[in-house]
Each structure stands twice: as C-alpha cells, then as structure tokens.
C-alpha cells in the first residue's frame, strides 16, 4: 500500500488537478461564497463570520506552509529557529491583544483555561511524540488534509476518534491528580499577565537562538519573512476568533464532537452516562448541528481555505510503505487521544492557552517539546 506525502522542506504539496493548476479555483471560490451566504442565512451570521475567519487561517497556514510541527523539527534537527521565532511572534501579538481584552470584558470573553494535572503532563508529552510521526499537529493535520495530502486525510478520522475517546476517558485521567486552572489575567491582572507572558516568550526565543548558533556550522537565518507575516496574520485571526465567538481558537473539541455524534447515532455511546459529554453544555452541542459549534466551523473553514490554496499548487511527494502508513495512523489516533488529555493541541493549549494567560499552555509547551525530541528520532527511524 503506497501513497505520497510531501518531504518536510518541499515548497509544493498538492494540487486538485495537476494538469491545470488553478483551474479549480473559480468553482471553488463560488462554492465557498455560497457556503458563507448559506451559513449566514440558515445558521447564524456569527457562524458565517467564524467560517470566514477559518478560511483565512487555512489560507495562511497552507499558503505559507506554517507548520508548528515542522518549525519544532527544523529547530531540533537543523538548528533552524525561523519557524519557532515566527510562532513566538504569533504568540506575542495574540497575547498582546487578547490579554487586555480578557481583562476588560471578563463577562463576554473566556480564556482557554485547562487544569495543571497528571493528565496534562502525559497528554502533552505523547502529543509531542506523535505530532512528529503523523507530520502534523491539530492545525497542521487540518490544513494538510485540506491540501489533499493522503497522509493527513488518512489521519483525520483517527484523530477524531482519538479525540472522542480521550474526552470519554478524561475524568478518569483527571482523577490521577489535578489542580484548578491558573489564570494569569485573573490572578495578576492584565499588566502582570502580559509581563509574565512576554518574559516567557523572550526566554523561549533566547533559548532557540542559543541552540541555533551552537552547531558549529552556519545556522540558517532566524527570520523568515513569509513565516513571520503568516504568524502575525494568524495571531490577528486568533484574536478575531476570540472577539467574535467569545472563546479562543480551538481545534480538537470539534473533532471529538463529530465522532461523538456518529457514536451516539450508532447506539454505541450514551452521552448522558458520561462525565464529560453528560454535562449540559456538551449535551446541547451534541443535539445541535455541527455548524453551530465554534471549533467545528473554524475547522471546516481551515480545510476549505487550504483546499483553495491547493487548487493552484503543483504536487510533489514520496511514497509511504504499508509499515509507515500503519505507524502514522496509530500516531494519528494517539494524537487525538492525547490532545484531549492535554486540554488542547498546539492551537487550543499552546496558542490559545498562552495568549489568554493560562498556565497550562506553558506546561503544554515544555512537555510537548520534550516529546518532540523523541518524536523526531522515531520519525527518522520509521522513515516517514
């Protein structure tokens, strides 16, 4: 069994029609505009706006090949800090706007607050390993699936299944030990939260800079204009998500919801009997259309935005063996499962956690990066 997927440094990933790149853009543009209008008419204007925000995210992620996973891997293996610096700029811009907004509108806006816990430690560590093997984190899997990369299209359903099962088992994992979520905005105010967040980001930037200069050979330039601009754009869209939805950007809740709906309809799962899905808010979300769910609608937008980019790009790739496929699909399932244990992926926990002043975002980064140190070695051994 073989398929193709792009090499890490490949500038081009996929196209819908290799013979005429760009030919599919017009009908695709019309379909996307119709979807925006249909959401506004049949669902709500807010969900339509969130879909547009997701389109922008997908376009930026795919257009700039902005990969959180790749950025970390390039830092670890090639001492190339450009991807990580772009992520730090993203976090700084998002935090610089989101934290004052959260302090000013505490009743309208919510932060991404996850509890520091054993569950978080294990989940983030496993997520860091598996995101390197599956070549994509939460947003990476989404936009690469939208680009039409077979690897990520295959991973997506297993990511959803893992995310669902992780949420089903979440309270069991939490019983291993947890403390209440820590909000820097609530505890220290906007000024203190901003100061602590910027200090942490500067420390991360310095560590990446020192590491990138330590190799003894000429390190790649730390500033990549395309990635930096994409990072700033993604930060502004993340803030827009917060302003419109009242909650930060997230990915994995939507995946778990889709699988939960299928499991419930199939009669193999009783949400009312589960500690997580039995909560009033989650039961209501299960009964509603996925088009009313915030994370689902931005997820769909990200995939559609990436598909629009893919309509113009030529493809390239290398074959995957059956063994590599098996490893990647197992990693995809674990990616989803661990992301729920960790209270988010690189988006929900790292970007949204840190930019809204949640301590769990910082813990997530430390453990996920430690996991990635192992993940890049496993990835090399598996040849993916």
């Amino acid at each position, binding site marked *: 069994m073989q398929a*193709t997927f792009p090499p890490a440094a490949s500038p081009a990933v996929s196209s*819908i*029609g*290799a013979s005429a790149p760009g030919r599919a853009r017009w009908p695709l543009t019309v379909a996307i505009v119709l979807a925006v209008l249909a959401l506004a008419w049949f669902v*709500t*204007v*807010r969900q339509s*706006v969130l879909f547009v925000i997701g389109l922008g995210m997908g376009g930026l992620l795919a257009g700039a090949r902005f990969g959180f996973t790749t950025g970390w891997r390039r830092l670890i293996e090639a001492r190339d800090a450009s991807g990580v610096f772009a992520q730090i700029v993203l976090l700084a811009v998002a935090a610089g706007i989101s934290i004052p*907004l959260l302090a000013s*509108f505490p009743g*309208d*806006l919510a932060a*991404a*607050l*996850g509890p520091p816990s054993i569950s978080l430690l294990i989940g983030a560590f496993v997520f860091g390993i598996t995101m390197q093997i599956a070549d994509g984190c939460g947003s990476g899997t989404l936009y690469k*699936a939208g680009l*039409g990369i*077979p690897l990520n*299209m295959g991973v997506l359903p297993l990511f959803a299944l893992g995310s669902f099962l992780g949420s089903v088992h*979440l309270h069991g994992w*939490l019983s291993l030990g947890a403390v209440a979520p820590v909000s820097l905005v609530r505890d220290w105010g906007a000024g203190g939260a901003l100061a602590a967040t910027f200090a942490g980001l500067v420390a991360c930037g310095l560590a990446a800079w020192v590491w990138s200069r330590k190799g003894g050979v000429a390190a790649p330039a730390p500033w990549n204009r395309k990635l930096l601009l994409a990072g700033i754009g993604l930060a502004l869209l993340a803030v827009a998500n917060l*302003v*419109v*939805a*009242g*909650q*930060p950007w*997230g*990915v*994995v*809740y*939507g995946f778990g*919801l889709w699988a939960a*709906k*299928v499991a419930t*309809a199939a009669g193999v799962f009783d949400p009312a009997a589960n500690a*997580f899905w039995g909560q009033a*808010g*989650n039961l209501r*979300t299960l*009964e*509603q*259309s*996925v*088009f009313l*769910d*915030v*994370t689902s609608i931005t997820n769909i937008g990200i*995939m559609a935005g990436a598909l629009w980019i*893919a309509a113009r790009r030529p493809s390239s790739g290398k074959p995957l063996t059956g063994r590599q496929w098996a490893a990647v699909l197992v990693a995809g399932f674990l990616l989803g499962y661990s992301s*729920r244990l960790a*209270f*988010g*992926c690189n988006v*929900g*926990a790292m970007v*949204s*956690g840190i930019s809204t002043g*949640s301590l*769990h975002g910082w813990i997530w980064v430390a453990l996920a990066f430690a996991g990635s140190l192992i993940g890049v070695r496993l990835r090399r051994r598996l040849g993916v």
Partner: protein
Amino acid sequence: MTSRASAIVLFWAVLIVFFAWDWTHSSPVNHRKEPAILAIGSGQAPSGGHCSAF
C-alpha cells in the same frame, strides 16, 4: 482525474455527506435565539465547547 484528485474528491464527499446527515438529524436552528455577531460587548457569556474544557 488523477488518483490524488480522486482521493480529495472522496474526502470532501464524505465530509459533505456527514454534514448533510448531521443537519437533518440535529435540532433545528432557533433563529430567535441567534447570538450577537460579536461576543465582545454583547453581555452574553460564551457557552461553546472548547479543547480546554473538562
């Protein structure tokens, strides 16, 4: 149509079928309860699901 293009079409077809099935099997949208376009300044607390929820 290349095998890659076929895979993309199949992927989106499955997604669209899922969305259509979900739309027909979910509670109808109550437009009387439509939230404000912007949550900020609306005076309404956010109630959507998020990855950090537990």
